């Protein structure tokens, strides 16, 4: 089977002030469809940069990033945007819901073709069928993150990328959200990649990739 992601000698450097910050130094990584993967590492280790490359939000300064056989390194913004919309779902630490839209509208706004039925269905799968018409401000943190997960699924993505999804949640709620992500992986065969520094989250993933100073220092499968 083709790898979903193929990263070869990926470098990502940012100019900062007069010097250059090397966020990623020669990262090589293969991620296959259906994997349940944690990217770990302390802050500054390059995991956010890796997430941006995986999420087609950014391109490497050197090396190769392929998504399902398509090279992203030199892709134009339009292609990346389309790829994000059609194949990638995002879950953010801060939930990033549109505060003026209800839960169901937040799901709909991410859809290529907004469909109320489908949005409600997705909210039902995350257990929020009765909260569809609530504004984010009326929802708890866990509920907001579940709306965000429903939104991430709006266009039936091949991969869901979660950036510290439990960072703003208490331990119980965090476990519920992790359960939900694992459920997506097992029930719907969606590839789930979770960026986290929370051992409790990472330990529940099947594969753990550890980064330090922009390099992969450990890649283990449980």
């Amino acid at each position: 089977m083709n790898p979903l992601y193929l990263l070869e000698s990926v470098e990502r450097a940012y100019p900062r002030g007069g010097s250059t910050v090397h966020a990623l130094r020669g990262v090589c990584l293969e991620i296959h469809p259906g994997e349940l993967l944690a990217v770990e590492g302390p802050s500054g280790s390059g995991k956010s940069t890796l997430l941006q490359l995986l999420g087609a939000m950014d391109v490497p300064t050197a090396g190769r990033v392929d998504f399902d056989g398509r090279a992203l390194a030199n892709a134009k913004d339009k292609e990346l945007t389309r790829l994000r919309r059609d194949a990638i779902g995002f879950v953010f630490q801060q939930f990033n819901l549109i505060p003026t839209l209800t839960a169901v509208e937040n799901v709909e706004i991410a859809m290529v073709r907004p469909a109320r039925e489908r949005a409600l269905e997705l909210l039902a799968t995350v257990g929020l069928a009765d909260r569809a018409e609530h504004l984010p401000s009326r929802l708890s943190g866990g509920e907001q993150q579940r709306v965000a997960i429903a939104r991430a699924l709006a266009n039936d993505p091949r991969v869901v990328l979660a950036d510290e999804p439990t960072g703003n949640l208490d331990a119980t709620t965090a476990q519920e959200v992790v359960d939900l992500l694992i459920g997506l992986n097992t029930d719907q065969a969606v590839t789930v990649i979770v960026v986290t520094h929370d051992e409790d989250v990472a330990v529940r993933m099947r594969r753990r990739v550890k980064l330090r100073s922009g390099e992969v220092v450990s890649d283990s499968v449980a």
Partner: protein
Amino acid sequence: MPSIRYVGNELRRRRTRTVLTAFGLASGVGLVMGIVGVSDGLDEAQAKVLSPLSSVGTDILVTRTVGATTSTASASPSPSATPGVTREGPGFFAAGGPPGARGGNALESLNDSDATALLNDNSSVITDLSKLGKAGTRFTHDFFLSGTMLTFPSAALDTIKAIDGVASATSALTLQAQHQTGTVPEIVAEVKTGGETLTTTARPAEMTSAEQTAFRSCIQRNGGFGGPVNQSSGPAPAPSPGSGGEVRRVEIGGFGAVNKCLPKRFQEYEAKVVTPLRTIQQLVNPPQTDTATTSWTAAGVDPKSPGSGLITKQNISSGTWFTGAANEVVLSTTYAGKQKLAVGGTLTVNGKAYKVVGLADPTLTGNTADVYFPLSTLQDVATRTGRVNEVLVKVADSSQTDEVAAAIKKALPGAQVVTSKDIADTVTGSLHDAQQLANRLGGALTVIVLISTFAVAVLLTLSSVQKRVREIGTLRALGWTKRRVVGQVLTETALIGVLAGVVGIAAGYAVSVAVGLLSPDLSATSSGVAAGASQVGELFGQTTTSLTRSVSLSAPIHLSTIALGMACALLGALLAGAVGGWRAARLSPAVALRDLG
């Protein structure tokens, strides 16, 4: 549609920004509308007061002034001319004169024919003291001058009416009148005229064969060339003094039969040769008496043309328009005040009484008169039968004014053709200054106001985008294209623009009302057209005619101004939206990931 709801909700959530942006734009729109309104108000005041022709339902004024004629003197016998007073301007507007007959010497500013026409037209300046009565008695005498506005046959009116694009035309006669009162002096200057040797080369057309036959048979009948002489060639009859010219028989032979048998037109010609008016110079310097002269202006207007002419029915401020009687006059309000005359009063000119039927406020132009007569009445009074000196033309389509003016110039060489715009250009005064100011500053002010309000809108929109960095980044991460992000921001600002437009239009109305309440007065002075700066007029103490009018400024809001206001609001909003959208679209989706606290 969450997108639409999103726009509405966004505007409501960021109410302060929405309201600030809208009111910023609205204030600009209101100001611009105010400026445009004032500018329109000035234009309308200009159109109303400063464009005298259009205010009397006319677009073009046709006159004949000295120096405008390009024809040379080629005096031809004129059977219709009254002996002694030949006002036919040779070559110009002359009825029946073929255009080809006119030579051209445009270099001479005042050529011979003009000089003659000028003097002829002003010949009634002669106050023939011998006719006023016995020495020592009081006399009053009004005489009429056309100044530099020379008269021409009223047939020119028909010529003009026939020109394409002329909707209607009416003729008028404006004369400067001199009112003299005094005592008949003891010494009356005796002026001898006539006796000059007249050299006139006339070439009547050759006799037609029919005429020749008739002539021959007539000669035969009357005994041939050897027949008795019926009429001896006696001395020329004594000229009557002061007639300004006299008739002289020209003997062409000693045979009475020839005289008798010549075709009529040869005889006619012989009877109508007019001597040049060389006595004028003597006559404009009458003997000094206690004669006092006051001047006034008289105008003859067509009573059947109440809609256009030197005055119109609309100018009548009290009384009525001419009812049709010949002995009616309309006075200008100022003149009536000076002369203490009112509607129903009587004005006496050369001993004849005229009934004042109305008072008028003539519109701003140099062609205003003190007394308006029915045209035919003034022609009689001033012995200008069949002559006018102004034709007021209304064109069918005002955009063709210049073309029609050119056509008139072509049809009537030497005519001075003036359009409304030409006259408006001569106007001075605070209204003129204000309009100049509005023209010069209005545009700049509008631009400054628009730039500053647009800048405010742009900055507020940019700040709003800055506050929504995470939100926009998220939408980009979710797959919103740059175009969709720009569209979102643009839609938001466009709605703000509509709101700003509505509020701004209301503000514009407020400015308009405020200007209307203040209604500052502006004055306008016109130096007039042809009658002004008349050399002959000055000779007789006639000062340049000018009229000052005062108008209240208003700032009317037209539909176009409202459209402009809305357009400005939308333009500003879209500009802000474009800049804000561009900024938003440049945001990396990665900003959604950043922990912004």
